C-alpha cells in the first residue's frame, strides 16, 4: 500500500512538470504586452518600462523565465501580482472560499445521487423512476451557466430566497444556492450510476442468498444492495471534487464569489503569467492528490482491491 502511494507520487512529478511547462508556454505566447497594458492609455517612460520588465523577469528568454519560476516555487515563493500582492497571499484568501463552495456542492450531489438513485433503482419503471429520468435528462442538457443565471434570476431576484451575489460575505448559507446549482448539474451521472448498480445488485446471487437466509428486505436493501452500489458513486463524487475545484470560474464569476476561479479569470485577463501559472500549478497538485485518494478510497470500499 505504502509502495503504491510512493509510486503514484513519483508518477505525479512528470505530470506536474509537463502541466506547468505547457501552461507557462501558453500564457507566454498570448498576444499583447502585459506591462504596456498596465499603463493603460499613458505612454510610459522606456526606463520605467525596462525596470518593471526586469522586476518580473520578463526581459529574459522564455525558458529562463520558466526555470526561474520553478526555482521560486520550490522555495515557496510564488512571486507577486502586478498590484504588488504576494501570489501566495492572494491564493490563501481565495482557496478556502472555493473549497467551501465545492465541498458543499459535492455533499449535496452525493446525497441527491444516492437517495434518488436508490429509490429510482428499487422501483425501476415506476412513476418515480420515469419522472426522475426525465428530470435528469433536462438537468443534464441545460448548460451550467444557463442554470446558474436562471437560479440567480428566479430564486435570487424574483423570489428573494437567497442572496443574488456573494461578494465578501462568503458564509455557508450565502453560497448555498450556487452550490446547489452546481450539484444539480453534476448529480445526474452519480444518480445514474447508483440506479444502475442498485438494479444490478437486486438480481445478484448474493442478494438472493441473503433472502434465502431469512433476512428481510429492510435489512437487505441497506446492507447488501445499497452498500455494494455505493462504491462507484463514491468514487465518481470524489473524482468530480477535483474537477470542480478547477472548474468554478463560471460559477464564481456569475455569483461574484471571490474564489480561485475568479482570481484565475482576472489574472488571465490581465496576462499575469505568474498568478495564472501558480494557480494552475496548485490545481494540478490538488487534482493529482485527489485522484490518488480516490483510488485508495476504492480499496477501502471494496475489499477485493488491494494495491501493491
Amino acid at each position, binding site marked *: 500500500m505504502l509502495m503504491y502511494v510512493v509510486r503514484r507520487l513519483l508518477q505525479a512529478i512528470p505530470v506536474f512538470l509537463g502541466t506547468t511547462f505547457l501552461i507557462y508556454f501558453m500564457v507566454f505566447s498570448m498576444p499583447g504586452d502585459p506591462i504596456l497594458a498596465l499603463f493603460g492609455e499613458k505612454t510610459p517612460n522606456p526606463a520605467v518600462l525596462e525596470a518593471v520588465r526586469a522586476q518580473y523577469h520578463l526581459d529574459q528568454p522564455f525558458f529562463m523565465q520558466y526555470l526561474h519560476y520553478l526555482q521560486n516555487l520550490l522555495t515557496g515563493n510564488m512571486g507577486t501580482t502586478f498590484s504588488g500582492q504576494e501570489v501566495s497571499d492572494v491564493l490563501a484568501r481565495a482557496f478556502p472560499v472555493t473549497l467551501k463552495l465545492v465541498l458543499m456542492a459535492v455533499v449535496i450531489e452525493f446525497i441527491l445521487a444516492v437517495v434518488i438513485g436508490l429509490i429510482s433503482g428499487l422501483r425501476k419503471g415506476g412513476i418515480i423512476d420515469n419522472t426522475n429520468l426525465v428530470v435528469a435528462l433536462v438537468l443534464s442538457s441545460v448548460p451550467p451557466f444557463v442554470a446558474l443565471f436562471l437560479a440567480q434570476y428566479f430564486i435570487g431576484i424574483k423570489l428573494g430566497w437567497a442572496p443574488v451575489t456573494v461578494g465578501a460575505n462568503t458564509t455557508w448559507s450565502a453560497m448555498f444556492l450556487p452550490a446547489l446549482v452546481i450539484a444539480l448539474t453534476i448529480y445526474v451521472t452519480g444518480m445514474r450510476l447508483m440506479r444502475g448498480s442498485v438494479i444490478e445488485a437486486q438480481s445478484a446471487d448474493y442478494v*438472493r442468498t441473503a433472502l*434465502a*437466509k431469512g*433476512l428481510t428486505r429492510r435489512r437487505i436493501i441497506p*446492507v447488501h444492495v445499497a452498500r455494494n452500489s455505493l462504491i462507484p458513486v463514491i468514487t465518481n463524487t470524489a473524482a468530480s471534487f477535483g474537477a470542480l475545484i478547477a472548474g468554478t470560474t463560471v460559477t464564481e464569476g456569475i455569483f461574484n464569489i471571490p474564489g480561485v476561479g475568479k482570481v484565475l479569470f482576472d489574472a488571465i485577463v490581465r496576462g499575469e503569467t505568474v498568478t495564472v501559472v501558480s494557480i494552475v500549478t496548485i490545481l494540478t497538485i490538488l487534482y493529482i492528490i485527489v485522484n490518488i485518494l480516490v483510488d485508495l478510497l476504492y480499496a477501502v470500499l471494496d*475489499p477485493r482491491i488491494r494495491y501493491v
Partner: protein
Amino acid sequence: MTEENTVQTLPTGAKPADANAPLVEVKDLEVTFTTSSGDVHAVRGVSFDIHAGETVAIVGESGSGKSTTATALIKLLAGNGRISGGQILVEGKDITHYGERQMASVRGGTIGYVPQDPMSNLNPVWNIGFQVREAIRANGVASGKKDIEAKAIEVLHQAGLGDAERRLKQFPHQFSGGMRQRVLIGIGLGADPKLLIADEPTSALDVTVQKVILDHLETLTREKNTAMLFITHDLGLAAERASKVIVMSQGKIVEAGPSLELLQHPRHPYTKQLIAAAPSLASRRIHSSVGEHLVDGVKGPDLLNLAEKHDDTEAAAEAKPVVVSVKDLRKTYMIRRGSFRSDPLHAVDGVSFDIHKGTTLALVGESGSGKSTAARLVLGLEKPTEGQITVGGVEMADASGKALFDLRRRMQVVFQDPYASLDPQRSIGAIIAEPLKVHKVGDRKSRDARVHELLDQVALPSAMADRYPNELSGGQRQRVAIARALALKPDVVVLDEAVSALDVLVQAQILQLLADLQEELDLTYLFITHDLAVVRVVADVVAVMEKGKIVETGGTDEIFERPQEQYTQRLLDAIPGAGIEFGS
C-alpha cells in the same frame, strides 16, 4: 393431466417411521414467467412430497424446470416469475399466499438453501463472519454478540472449515470455491432448518472437491435429520445421494420413484434416454455409429452395448504415425507478490506425450492442473518457456510468419462454451467460411459449397447457413463450432472441454458425432476435460495431469481398470454414481 404427473409419493422403505404427514407437500404447482414474447410456463402441474429426514433429488436437463421448482418452494423466483397455480404446503400450511415478512420466517429457519455457484453467492464486500452472523441473528438461533459469534464458528466448523475462528474476518475472495461452498452450506444449515434445498451445490466445483462437499452434506443432514431436496443434472449423483428421484422434463414430472429402482428399471422413454446417454465408468469407447442401432428412435450412441472392439484399436493406434509430439514442455508464469518480488508459477512443468494419427489423447485434470495451458501451447496460442512441440513433422519453435500460419491450418480448436465462441453478429455460413477466407482457400462459390458440405457432415440442414447463432440451441451451436474447426481439413482438432457445457442427451450426440468424424476423416483429437466419465467414452490414451505434470499415462481401459497412481484413483472414486449399475 396424465397419470405420470401425479407422483406416487411414498417410496417403499424410505418413509421415516415418526412422520406421518409429509414435511413439504407440493400440489399441482404451476410457475409462469412473463417475458416480452408472452408467458412461459416453466413448471406445469408438479406434485411431490418430502418427508422429514428424506433426501429427494430432482433430475433434468437445463430448461426442465427443476431449479424453478426448487426456488418456488422458498418463493425466490426471478422478478418476472410467479406461482400461477397449485399449493405448496410446508408443515401443513400453504405458503403460496405468504407475504415477504412471512416468507422471511420460513426461509432459513424452516427451509435452508444452498445455491449453485459459490463464486457469486457471497457478498464480496462483507467478511465471512458478518455474512454467517447475520443469518444466525435473522433466524433467532442465538442472541447476544458473544453467542452469535460462537454459533457462527460452530456452524462453520460443522461445515468443514476447521480454522473458522481465524478466517471469520477474511473476505470471500480470499477463499477457494470449495471453501466458499462450505461457508454457504454452513449458512444454509445454520438455523437447523427442517429442509435443505441444494440447487446443483457442487456443479461449479472440481470432482474431488465435489465428493468431499457432498459427503459432508450427507453426514450433516443425517446427524440433524434434515430433509434435503437435491437439484441436479447428474443422474449418477442423484442415484448415489438421494433415496427418491424425480425426473423432470419440460416443466413436468415424467417419472419418480426410489432412486435405484428408477435408474435400474426406468419406465418412461425419456428416463431411458437420459440413462443411456449418461457416460459412466461402465461405458465403453464410442465408435462410428454407421450401421448401429437407434435408441428409442433417437439417433444416439448406445454406450452400454457397444461392441468390444476397443482392445485391438489400441494396439492398432500404436502402429500409426505420430502427428503431435510434445517433449518436455514447460510454461512458467511470473506471479506478482509485491512491488519487486514475483514468484514463478509452473503451469506446465515438463510434459511429454505423443498422439498417433486418428486417435484421441485425453488430457485429464482438475482446474489449475495445467491442462488448458498445455492445449494453448500445442495450438501455438502461447509460447512455451521450454520444450518442443512437433506437429506433422514441423517443429513449432522453428516456424514463424508464413510457416506458422500454415501450421495453424493443420490444427483447429473447439471451445467449451458454444454461446461465447460464435460471433452473434454473423450468420452460421459466414462463421464456418471464415477460416477458409482467412487462409484464402478457394473462391466465394467453392467456399459456399464447402460450407454446405460441412453442415452436412455435422448433421445440420443446409438452410442453417443463413441463420444466426441466437436462433440455435446449445447442441446445434457446438455442431457449428465443430464444422468451423473442420473447414480447413485439419489433421488435429483440440477439443477444450468441448462437451462440458452441454446437457447429457446433447452431449451424447456430440460425442457420437465426434467419433463418426474421427473415423470418416481420420482425425486426431486432443481432448481436454475434467470429466472422467466422458474420457472413458472418447479416449484411446489418457494422460492424467496434476500441478503441471503428467502423473500417469496409459490406455483408457488400463487407466480406468488398473490406475497406478493414488491421484488417478481419487479422481475415479470421486465420479458420482461410480459403483452404480444403470439399467436401460
